[in-house]
C-alpha cells in the first residue's frame, strides 16, 4: 500500500467524506488504483479531467471538481526499464516504468512487471491498469 495512504488509514480516525470540499485527495486516487480502477477529477465547468490531487481546475480555475471513474486502458507515452530500483522494488528488477495516456488526454504513471528490456515495449503500446497484486500501480500489456 502507498505509505502515505497507510498513514491516513491506519493512524487517523478522521472521517473525511469523499467529494468533501469538491476536491480530490490522495486516498481517492490510490484506493481506486488498488482495485485496478482509475479515478480522475472532472471540472464541473469546463469538463477538464486529470488524475491528480486537485482543488482547482488547472485549465479554468473553477473550484468545484467531481471525482469519477474513467477507463483504465491507454497507450504508453514513454518508458524506462529500471535495472536499479528504489525500495521496495529491489527484487522486481528489471521492469518497465511507464507514463500512460488514457482517454481525453489524461495521463497516469505505473509499472509493468516482467518487462525486462527495451525490445519488449514500444511507445504507443496498449496497456491496462490491473488490480495491485504487487506494490504501486500495476499495468499489463494488452494486444
Amino acid at each position, binding site marked *: 500500500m502507498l505509505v502515505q495512504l497507510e498513514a491516513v488509514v491506519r493512524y487517523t480516525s478522521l472521517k473525511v467524506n469523499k467529494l468533501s470540499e469538491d476536491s480530490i485527495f490522495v486516498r481517492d486516487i490510490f484506493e481506486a488504483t488498488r482495485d485496478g480502477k482509475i479515478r480522475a477529477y472532472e471540472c464541473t465547468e469546463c469538463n477538464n479531467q486529470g488524475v491528480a490531487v486537485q482543488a482547482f481546475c488547472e485549465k479554468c480555475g473553477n473550484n468545484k471538481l467531481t471525482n469519477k471513474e474513467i477507463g483504465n486502458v491507454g497507450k504508453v507515452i514513454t518508458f*524506462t526499464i*529500471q535495472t536499479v530500483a528504489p525500495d521496495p522494488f529491489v527484487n522486481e528488477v528489471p521492469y518497465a516504468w511507464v507514463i500512460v495516456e488514457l482517454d481525453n488526454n489524461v*495521463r497516469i504513471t505505473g509499472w509493468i512487471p516482467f518487462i525486462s528490456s527495451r525490445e519488449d515495449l514500444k511507445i504507443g503500446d496498449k496497456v491496462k491498469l490491473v488490480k495491485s497484486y504487487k506494490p504501486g500501480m500495476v499495468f499489463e500489456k494488452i494486444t
Partner: protein
Amino acid sequence: MNKVFLLSAAGTSYGKANLTARDLSMLASKRAIKRAGIKVQDIQAAFVANAFGMAEKQGHLGPLLMSSLGIPHAPSSTIEAACCSGGSAIREAYVNVASGFYDVILVAGTEKISHLDTLTATTYFSYGGDYCFEGNSGASFPGLYATMARSHMHEYGTTEEELAAVAVKNHENGFLNDKAHFQKKITIDDVLKSAVVADPLKLYDSCPFSDGAAAAIIASEEFMNKNNLQKRVSIKGSGRAGGPGSLHARKNMTSLESTIRASREALKHANINIKDIDFAEVHDCFTIAEIIAMEDLGIFEKGEAGKAVVEGRTSINGDIPINPSGGLKSKGHPVGATGVGQVVEVFEQLTGDSKKRQVEDARIGLTHNVGATGGSCAVHIFESE
C-alpha cells in the same frame, strides 16, 4: 529595486567528506566571509539550503551554523526545493537585499549523503518528485529522467552517443577542477559500456551522490559603498518558476516549463538576450538534463543541443562553454549545495580566478538550477563590473 552585488562566494571540495553537513556549511561560510573581506558581524541574516537533513537526523541547521559563526542572534531559514534548494536560497537573498530590507545576507548550501547506501540514497532521491505516482510505483530518480531521454530520442533522434558526449565534456572540465568529485577524463566508450541504471541512462550518464557545501555573500550597493568594498560581480537578473511536480501532469516530456519561465524572467530582468551570455552553469543531474536545459534556455534550437556538444561548441574553448566547473556530473551534486556551488564557479570565472578552466573574456555568466524533474527552477545572471 536596488542594485545587488555578489560580494563573494566560496566552497568546499565535493566528494566523500568525513565532516557533517553542519561542519561543511561552516567551512564554506568561513571561506566566503574571508574572501568577502567583511566582519562576520556584518551578516544580518542567512538562508541555508539543505535537502536531506533527515539523512543525518538533523533538521533546522540554520541556528547551528549561525552559532558556529559566532552570530547566533542572526535569523536563518532552511530553504528546501529538492536539488533547486541552493538556487532558491540565492533568489530569496537577492529579493531581500534588492528590496532594501537587508544589506548583507549569507547563503549557505550544504549536504552530507555519501554515508547512505545506494538503495537508501536512490529511494531518498525519489522523494523529490511526486512520490505517490512515481517512486511508489517503482520509478527511481534516474528512471524519471530516463523517460525524458527516451522521449527526446524518439522525437528528435538524439542518440546515446550524444548523451555520452555531455559526460565526456563535463569530465574534461572536472579534470581541471581541484574541488571536483571526479577528477578524471572518460571516453564515449566508457559511458556507453557503463552499467545501465534506467534504460537508456547509464551510470556514467548520472551525477554522483556527493557531500559538500558552498556559500555566497549577497550585499547591497549601499553596504559596498559605505565599506569601500571593490564591486566585482553584480546580480543582473533573477528568475524563478515552478512547473508540474509530477511527470504525468505535463504534456511535453522533452522540455521543462519551469526552465523556460525562469530563464525568460531572468533575461528580461537583466535586459539581455541569451546570446549575450559568455558561459553557463546548468543543471546536468543526468546527461539528458544538460541537453534539455540548453534547449529550454534558448542556447540551441530544440533537438540541436546534442549535436552541438559533439561538435565541441560547449567545451571551455567552444563558442558557448557549458559547465566549465565540470557540472553536477563531474564536479558533483551535494544536493542543497549545488545551486550555490554554481554561483561559486560563476564568481571565480567572472573575477578571472578559474585557473586552467578559465573561460576567455568571461563577462556575463548564467546559473540554472532545477529541483527534481522541473517542479522548481532558479536562473540567475551575473556580470563582472
